[in-house]
């Protein structure tokens, strides 16, 4: 009888087994398909979807006259109401008790704002704990800023006329102007759209959080379940090499990752398409083939990394409980990396933290997407190669730790 080190039978069996577990596969693949467009919707429309209550009280109705310029407090109220409505507020002028933000134009406002010696007061009251209130305050501040500028221009114009001096109000009020130019990694100027692309890169890197974990449960069951169902012992006495059991199971389970990656790519298209269709913002032009390929690869490699991280533990312990405890730890570490990806650039962190993060495979998946977003193809490939290397080391450890005796006698 000849013995051969072969991977094929293990992968053949794992795939058949997997193909008949349609419910699990569907759940794993559908999750990113739903989550990605949902993220697209929520990240863009969340402010407008959130309903808030704003109260605008005008205690000093009437005209504000500065030289030839005439304003009204009602005009200010209208502008504040419009700004708050655009942020998803229900605006009322009645003094209700439950509100997110209240804006009061107090008595004496007109006298103060038309004065050349006093300051005019607007009172803003925010409900504690209201996340909507901050958005409302920023909208009101923007309106007040424009209104104050118009009043200031009127005052400068009036004073210039009284003094019989030729005055340009903007040279008095804004004597310094500055220009901003966006540059890409090469130093060349890029359009504003590029900054939006970078923001999307962060969201896409964060989206990896949804695809990294389901495969952990699958591989755990593939090893521990086989032991529990008493099929492992007979298999271990066959000439099938241990490395082909480990690699065969990992590669088969990673095909779930591939399915997830493809579903994720479709989700990604929806993520870009929904805002395009709804708001007329053409986000689809940001989705380059490099970004799409990098995203799918990052998804697949993140799944493989999760499998490679949990396999040594599962192989050594052969226990559901231990595997669950460690999978929680892996999910925790992954979440930290993905949250960092959302708010910071890993490559720009201090060296000690950066290199610590580079030890974690997920960091390279994040870097792959972020570099692809910037069009840095070589850096994308470099991070993917490092990630593949880390995965290979972890799988080699799993093979090294393989112990028939531990698997047979461990408690599931």
């Amino acid at each position: 009888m000849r013995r051969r080190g072969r991977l094929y039978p293990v992968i053949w069996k794992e795939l058949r087994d997997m193909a008949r577990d349609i419910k699990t596969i569907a759940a794993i693949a559908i999750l990113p398909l739903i989550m990605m467009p949902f993220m697209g919707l929520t990240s863009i429309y969340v402010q407008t979807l959130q309903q808030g209550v704003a109260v605008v009280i005008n205690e000093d109705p009437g005209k504000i006259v500065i030289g030839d310029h005439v304003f009204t407090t009602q005009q200010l109220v209208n502008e504040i109401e419009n700004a708050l409505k655009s942020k998803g507020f229900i605006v009322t002028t009645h003094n209700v008790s439950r509100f997110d933000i209240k804006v009061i134009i107090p008595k004496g406002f007109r006298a103060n704002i038309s004065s050349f010696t006093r300051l005019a007061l607007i009172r803003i009251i925010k409900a504690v704990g209201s996340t909507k209130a901050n958005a409302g305050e920023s909208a009101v501040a923007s309106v007040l800023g424009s209104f104050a500028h118009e009043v200031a221009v009127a005052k400068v114009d009036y004073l210039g006329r009284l003094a019989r001096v030729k005055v340009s109000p903007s040279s008095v009020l804004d004597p310094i102007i500055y220009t901003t130019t966006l540059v890409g990694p090469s130093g060349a100027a890029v359009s504003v759209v590029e900054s939006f692309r970078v923001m999307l890169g962060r969201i896409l890197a964060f989206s990896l959080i949804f695809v990294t974990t389901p495969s952990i449960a699958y591989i755990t069951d593939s090893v521990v379940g086989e032991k529990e169902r008493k099929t492992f012992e007979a298999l271990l006495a066959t000439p099938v090499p241990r490395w082909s059991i480990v690699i065969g199971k990992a590669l088969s389970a990673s095909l779930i990752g591939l399915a997830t990656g493809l579903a994720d790519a479709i989700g990604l298209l929806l993520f870009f398409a929904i805002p395009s269709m709804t708001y007329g913002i053409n986000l689809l032009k940001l989705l380059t083939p490099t970004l799409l390929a990098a995203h799918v690869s990052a998804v697949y490699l993140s799944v493989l990394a999760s499998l490679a991280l949990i396999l040594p533990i599962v192989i050594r312990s052969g226990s559901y409980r231990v595997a669950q405890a460690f999978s929680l730890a892996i999910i925790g570490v992954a979440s930290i990396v993905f949250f960092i990806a959302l708010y910071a650039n890993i490559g720009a962190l201090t060296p000690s933290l950066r290199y610590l993060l580079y030890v974690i495979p997920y960091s390279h998946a994040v870097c792959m997407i972020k570099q692809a977003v910037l069009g840095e193809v070589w850096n994308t490939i470099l991070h993917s190669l490092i990630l593949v290397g880390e995965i290979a080391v972890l799988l080699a450890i799993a093979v090294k730790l393989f112990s028939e005796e531990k698997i047979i006698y461990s408690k599931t």
Partner: protein
Amino acid sequence: MAGDGAAVRLRDVVKVFGKKVRALRGVSFEVPRGAIYGILGPNGAGKTTTLRIIATLVRHDSGYVEVLGHRLPDERNLVRGRISYLPEDAGLYHRLTGWENLLYFAMIYSDTLEEARRMAELGVKLSGLSERDIHRKASEYSKGMARRVALARALMVGAELVLLDEPTSGLDVFSAYSIRKIIKNFAKSSGATVLMSSHNMLEVEELCDRVILINKGSIVAEGEPAELKERAGAANLEEAFIKLVGGVS
């Protein structure tokens, strides 16, 4: 290095789990090639540990183990392709059909898919399952049907040494009879060495040329069933076992 006629040779084999549990306390025996040997003993006697050591799954702590002329554990990779092992309560992959369960193991032992198919066909014959049943999912099998497929999986690969751990444990009378029949026919036709463990005295008496009685990790007696009965002055093997181990504890 290939040895002489013995398929299995154990000398003073000791296995301790943890610090306290001495599963085997110096077990020695030899199984000649082509023989059907039974390891008989109560639960916890060390039968499964002995079979697992021979099946290359567990490493012994001291002593000497040789299987088909190869020393264990060093030459375990040379042994694995020449033995087959049916663990106690061996399961099937429940999402695969009976045929696919057979084909999976056949592929491991074969060089081509064609060869694997022929091996699996032999497995179907050995199991005695109908064409319809063998293509049903294993999750739909009764315990007896599943055990017949698992046994066929172990027998079909053409191993020189077949290790069977409690092949009929937990089965009803009909299923156990059917399993015994399969083992008997296989042993007659294949010429392979069979080493099986059991706590069913009648089963061992019916199937085995020679019996090793084991209790609390030590061999109590070894011989042909008739010889053991005579030595103990017992009417059957069960009575002989009780007398030889020193009564019911």
